[in-house]
């Protein structure tokens, strides 16, 4: 179904972090941007669609006191709002927001750090753009920070802090179908596997809490009202977001899953894990019994690679890209 394309070289290798690949497709300029985290650096690559031109940029996490050890980055992801695209970078020290090409930092939010280090690590992780003007970021304390982003300029404000999680937030996702008919806008996941389903607005409203089972949910997606959650057990679960009804459970991978992605137009689902497998699934809404079906379509074994990032490169799922721990390249696959 898919075949391997020429890889894109990175300036430095990918770190072992959940969802360690972000893709931004810029149709007007026929460009695709890729972001991959290496320790305290974000590798940015933009590739022209004809595959002939690549340009590289590296972002250092240079916040905080430079004299102390530089802070490690946890995640880098583009947030696409109707008015603007921002690159959000989360680390041990705080949250940075850049213009989408990484050229200018427009906002910096520092995390509260205690004077003396405690055993609990502090970091931000989990990034999602919600509706017209919100960017939500998770924190290791379990808090979800909601930022209100103006259509231009740097007057970004922290508008709300959602405190429903008690464990470190792992990932966050907004409804990706583009349709306004679904009530739930946002889902957040944490280290205990707890999922919180939210409706955005002046005040974010908690719609539902789907309990975990003491196993981290490392990656989560929200598509047509269905929450797709991936866990450290290698399982994927499909829930109806608003009610929490479990539609399906998939024994998908033999090791910890690191990344999920949805192609919103076709309902293709991508899952990737430490077991070196990438799998493609198809989600099919079954309105007659108020459910969603999942079927398995395709396997790809990226030999001897602990996969840490996997994303579709377009809304149809025609192509996808994969990163792996210690690997200095982005491996690409396209449909045959």
């Amino acid at each position, binding site marked *: 179904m898919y075949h391997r394309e020429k890889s894109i070289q990175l300036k*430095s*290798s990918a*770190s*072992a*972090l959940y969802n360690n690949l972000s893709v931004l497709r810029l149709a007007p300029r026929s460009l695709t941007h890729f972001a991959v985290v*290496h*320790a305290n650096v974000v590798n940015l690559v933009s590739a022209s669609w004809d595959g002939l031109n690549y340009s590289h940029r590296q972002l250092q996490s240079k916040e905080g006191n430079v*004299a*102390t*050890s530089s802070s*490690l980055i*946890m995640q880098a992801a583009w947030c696409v709002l109707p008015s603007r695209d921002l690159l959000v970078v989360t680390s*041990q020290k705080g949250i940075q927001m850049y213009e989408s090409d990484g050229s200018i930092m427009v906002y910096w939010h520092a995390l509260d750090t205690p004077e003396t*280090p*405690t*055993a*609990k*690590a502090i*970091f931000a992780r989990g990034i999602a753009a919600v509706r017209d003007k919100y960017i939500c970021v998770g924190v290791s304390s379990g808090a979800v920070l909601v930022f209100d982003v103006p259509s231009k300029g740097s007057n970004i404000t922290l508008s709300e802090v959602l405190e429903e999680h008690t*464990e*470190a937030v792992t990932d966050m996702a907004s409804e990706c179908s583009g349709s306004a008919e679904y009530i739930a806008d946002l889902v957040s996941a944490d*280290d*205990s596997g707890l999922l919180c389903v939210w409706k955005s607005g002046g005040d974010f409203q908690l719609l539902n809490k789907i309990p975990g089972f*003491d*196993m*981290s949910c*490392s990656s989560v997606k929200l598509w047509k009202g269905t929450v797709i959650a991936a866990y*450290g*057990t*290698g*399982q994927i679960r499909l829930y109806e977001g608003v009610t929490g*009804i*479990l*539609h*399906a*459970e*998939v*024994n*998908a*991978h*033999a*090791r*910890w899953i690191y990344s999920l992605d949805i192609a919103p137009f076709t309902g293709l689902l991508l899952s990737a894990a430490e*077991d*070196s*497998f990438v799998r493609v699934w198809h989600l099919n809404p079954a309105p007659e*019994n*108020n*459910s969603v*079906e999942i*079927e*398995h379509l395709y*396997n790809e*074994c990226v*030999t*001897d*690679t*602990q996969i840490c990032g996997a994303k579709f490169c377009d809304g149809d799922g025609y192509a996808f890209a994969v990163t792996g*721990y*210690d690997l200095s390249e982005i491996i690409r696959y396209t449909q045959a």
Partner: protein
Amino acid sequence: MSLRTLPLLMINMGGEMLYILDQRLRAQNETDDKIQKGWSDADRKRVMNDIVGVMFSKAFLEELMQPQDTYSHQALRYLLTRLAHTSIMRLNSTSIDRLYDLMTMAFKYQIALCPRPRDILLVSFNHMDGVRELVKDNPRLVNLINEAQRLIIEMFTPLSDGEFQLIRQTLLTFFQDTHIRVSVFLKENLQNADGSFVMPTSGTVPHGSEVPGLIRYFNTRGRVVRRREFVTGGSYTRPVRDASFDVSGDRVTRLGINMYGESSHTPEDTHTSRSSTHTCKREQVSDEPNPLAKVELNLLAKLMGQMEVWDSVGADGGMGVNLFPSDQEEEDTRFSVEDEVFCVVNIQAVKVDTELTRIAAEFTDQDAAERPGDKGEDLLAMMDEL
């Protein structure tokens, strides 16, 4: 990221160090080479006992257990060298280099391959069990290791799987871009020629996980209404039993056991090879000595004691040993997968020194320029002189 990596780094890399030292010193004892004479069984035991006594001392471990960032490679190498030199044995810089490479790759392999993050604890227990076996004649040390193991159990077993994953990811970042080839791994087909590890797509899934290949569909009342299987491309089985996270018991995983054990103490097991590009890369990663870590280092060094011995290495009556004599290196090439690669290494064995000197020089400059009068400098300077 995680602030709890240091005790694990010390126990596992220290454990690997003890395995290697034990095997090398046994080999030294067996050779007829009279130049290296003097390494009797009693000497070897003394070295083992001295190192284990410091490594598992309560004060030292408790200091490591303070929440703190991971050290730089430079600092960790210094600490482990100091640990080795708490005994009567003195290692030359080539031996220290090779020793550190072996420890690094062994532990990197164990972290990368352990099926679930929590298994890092089992790897640590395997190391502690293995070291206990090496000093089993000494009840005081066996006791010390048991106590240390209880400390580790107390600190780590309550952690969630998510926290263990963070520890694992922090350690993987620490070892990132280190691709030294180790002959024992290459020979066993555990490592590829480019230094990456072979990731199996078969075997047992971690305890608590399901074998991939099944989809279950539920109705609104939570009943399974349909099952469908799919082809996974791997072949996995369910684990037979869960491992023991107690002071003793079956650890199930073999990661972290003594692979230089009785049956195979032949010199080729400790052969490493590295490309020059790699050396540069790795030093880059560790190029930011954390000032905080420097203070900590001084403290740890004090806990280890014998500060004065350091100043007079070689003149204190300690016994020098070359762990990896060059004549054995050449013999090793017959075991190697790619002969030409290992030839390069033999030349490199000489070059490593100049490379280190260059890096050391850079460090001294940088330190002197940026942080004049910093106390930690003394230790880093000593490190450079290794």
